[in-house]
């Protein structure tokens, strides 16, 4: 009789092994929703390269929980509304264990409630609007948030540019831009500056001459614009056409090679805040830049390392959770502490945000140069 339990145990182990080997071929699927085409395509494309690189690396060292990782990528075409549809498709058809939101804050705000209902974690790679993770315990991000970024921009304008009179240009149809402008205004006023002109535009607008003419009449010392790169490049171009030679500065929405491609020489003399600089001497950054260049023959902007870090954070959380169950994976993600990544150490705080330093980059002679790093 004494042999029976162990026989049962052996049988169970064999069964478990059989099940696990059957499932070993079955990859763990992550979902990716981002703008791979359209006017924010640079964000999605760069992030996609980062994700691909991270997944290849993880699979090369044996995957997670004995299973390889796979990615289901979907394109929201930079269109409002599409992210929500795609997220539903990834959850119901592809049965992904987590979704990486590589697009803008507006995109991630569409995905967050859907992930919350499905109890599958959302990890935003570059969405900086605070609302993305607010009140939803399944929404996380691996980047800093706009209140911090706004403070960095205000500090930069006051202390580095020595500007007292600043004109503000906001994209009213972007959650990111509206939120960033709000914080920038508060912090800049608190630092003793004044906003001499407050102008607005809509996403997809091409003509900013009217707003810039009004800004020129207010005679500011610098222009703060909080939108994304496509509009940013055109704003620089039209500002220079109108004879405005003052510095123009922006948030991380300007982080794309297209900024300089579209804006040309007119972008010179502008600044933006970002998540990392490829010029950093940190060994993690240099190793990443080297790998990225070897695979894609280009220098990564900050969307790629953020997405790369996001995959690594999910993989590490999966390993700690020991399961792909949504609730357990959520708890493991929430417990992420001091995870060493390319964009600095990631610690998920109580509000499911990561606090990380920001860098200010200057555009000079058609290239971005590292200017300064500002700690939280």
């Amino acid at each position, binding site marked *: 009789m004494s042999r029976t339990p162990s026989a049962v145990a052996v049988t169970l182990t064999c069964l478990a092994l059989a099940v696990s080997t059957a499932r070993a071929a079955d990859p763990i699927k992550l979902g990716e929703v981002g703008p791979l085409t359209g006017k924010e395509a640079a964000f999605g494309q760069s992030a996609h390269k980062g994700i691909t690189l991270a997944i290849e690396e993880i699979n090369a060292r044996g995957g997670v929980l004995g299973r390889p990782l796979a990615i289901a990528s979907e394109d929201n*075409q930079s269109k409002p509304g599409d992210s929500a549809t795609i997220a539903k498709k990834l959850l119901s058809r592809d049965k992904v264990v987590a979704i990486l939101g590589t697009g803008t804050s507006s995109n991630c705000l569409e995905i967050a409630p859907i992930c919350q209902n499905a109890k599958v974690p959302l990890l935003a790679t570059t969405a900086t609007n605070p609302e993305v993770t607010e009140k939803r315990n399944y929404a996380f991000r691996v980047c800093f948030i706009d209140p911090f970024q706004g403070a960095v921009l205000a500090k930069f304008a006051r202390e580095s540019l020595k500007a007292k009179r600043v004109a503000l240009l906001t994209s009213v149809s972007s959650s990111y831009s509206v939120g960033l402008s709000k914080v920038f205004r508060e912090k800049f006023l608190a630092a003793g500056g004044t906003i001499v002109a*407050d102008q607005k535009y809509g996403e997809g607008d091409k*003509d900013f001459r009217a707003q810039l*003419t009004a800004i020129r009449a207010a005679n500011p010392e610098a222009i703060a614009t909080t939108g994304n790169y496509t509009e940013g490049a055109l704003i620089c171009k039209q500002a220079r*056409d109108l004879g405005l030679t003052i510095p123009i500065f922006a948030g991380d929405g300007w982080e794309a090679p297209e900024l300089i*491609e579209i804006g040309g020489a007119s972008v010179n003399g502008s600044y933006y805040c970002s998540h990392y600089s490829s010029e950093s001497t940190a060994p993690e950054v240099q190793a990443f830049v080297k790998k990225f260049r070897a695979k894609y023959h280009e220098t990564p902007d900050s969307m790629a390392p953020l997405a790369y870090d996001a995959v690594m954070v999910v993989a590490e959380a999966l390993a700690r959770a020991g399961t792909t169950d949504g609730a357990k994976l959520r708890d493991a993600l929430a417990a992420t502490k001091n995870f060493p990544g390319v964009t600095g150490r990631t610690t998920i705080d109580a509000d499911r945000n990561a606090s990380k330093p920001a860098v200010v980059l200057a555009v000079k002679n058609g290239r971005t140069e590292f200017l300064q790093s500002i700690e939280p």
Partner: protein
Amino acid sequence: MAEFLQQLLNGLSLGAIYALIALGYTMVYGVLRFINFAHSDVFMVGAFIGYYAGKLVPEGTIWGGLLVLAIAMAGCAILGMTIERLAYRPLRGAATLNVLITAIGVSLLLEYSGQVFFGAAPRTFPAVFPSANFSVGGLVISSNQIVVIVVATLLMIALEFIVHRTKIGTAMRAVSLNPKAAQLVGINNDVVISFTFGLGSALAAAGGILYALNYPSIEPLMGVMPGLKAFVAAVLGGIGNIPGAALGGLILGVVETFVNGSQWSTYKDAIAFAILIAILLFRPAGLLGKFTVEKV
């Protein structure tokens, strides 16, 4: 005052582009009595032809710019005539609604084939014309704005000449007045309609190039908003009326620019369309349009 003049100049150069697109809508409406919704996408194709042609000529020369303009206009004229031949001619005589839906279909076909062939990511339009900025007493005039206004004015004068001083123009007006009677006096309606599409599409291509010169980021959906505004401009001026379309375009461009530069910039499209509604309430046929009783 300097700010007012600057905004007026900004508005006129934007309005001139709307006017060029609006002319195409109005001419097609004039002869066929239907709105060619694919027109705004011909505008987009014009910009893309200019993008590819611009890579072949040296940047920043006047002849290079004019050559690009001519290539795009010729290319779009052919495209416009092809669309008419393949999509609209088979429906000649069918209900207007059928043609209208076909036009929407052609529009979507062009937009999404554009995404396949040109890619959905925005492209940077090359600076084909030489560019410089002139400062006149606080007023900054960019050479692109001058190019836009000059090219648009010349094209509109040429159009007036074609419509009122040439044989084919007379035929166009005849078809517009009464297609059956025109046929009876020996006009080949198919040729006239084909020519109208070619001419309208060439103007759209010119609009596309001028738009891309000023806003050098082009993508396959770039025609949607300017097309809608130009359509409004055509209705505002009196659809079917050529000077009306030009006037409507200028009014819309100027109003939009002034609203944009004010505190109410968020409402710019709402205000532009509210003006349209107000004008149509008092002048249902548009500013220069003649109100005609529909014969049933």
